[in-house]
């Protein structure tokens, strides 16, 4: 990511706010594309005339558990770093 403060746009608070919001929106969308990519592979068998409830449950669980896993790993990784181990 380019550091936006390098540009004079960085001094324009309206533009800066706008770009920050747009950047967050873009990151949110990118994350959804990624989730949908692998959760689709895990949950959707043959595309039917609608998503059945089992598939819907699988998709929501897939997103929720992935977030759980990344939080767990982030916390555990932070603990590893605190102990000074793990990365030699």
């Amino acid at each position: 990511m380019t550091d936006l403060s390098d540009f004079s746009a960085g001094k324009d608070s309206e533009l800066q706010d706008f770009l920050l919001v747009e950047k967050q929106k873009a990151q949110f969308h990118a994350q959804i594309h990624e989730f949908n990519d692998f959760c689709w592979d895990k949950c959707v068998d043959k595309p039917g005339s609608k998503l059945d409830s089992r598939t819907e449950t699988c998709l929501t669980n897939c997103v929720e558990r992935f977030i759980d896993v990344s939080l767990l790993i982030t916390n555990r990784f932070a603990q590893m770093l605190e102990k000074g181990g793990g990365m030699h």
Partner: protein
Amino acid sequence: MDSLSTGSLSGAQKEELMDQVKQQIAIANAQELLTKMSEKCFKKCINKPGTALDNSEQKCIAMCMDRYMDSWNLVSRTYSSRIQRERNNM
């Protein structure tokens, strides 16, 4: 980007710049969705590529596109409510 470093922009220029940014992002988003959909639905619907897309393959593709959108929207709702929940817990 060069023009950005040459002083301040007028209100109208700023407006135009913001519109352009939004439009570029929307285009990139649509392209991402199209690429993913083509890849996923090709995988699901075309088992043995023949000399043309037959009727059932076309139907499958149409259905797959709709379901992919459904799935995308569901994932989006799930993700945003999770973000909301995590924020409330902070």
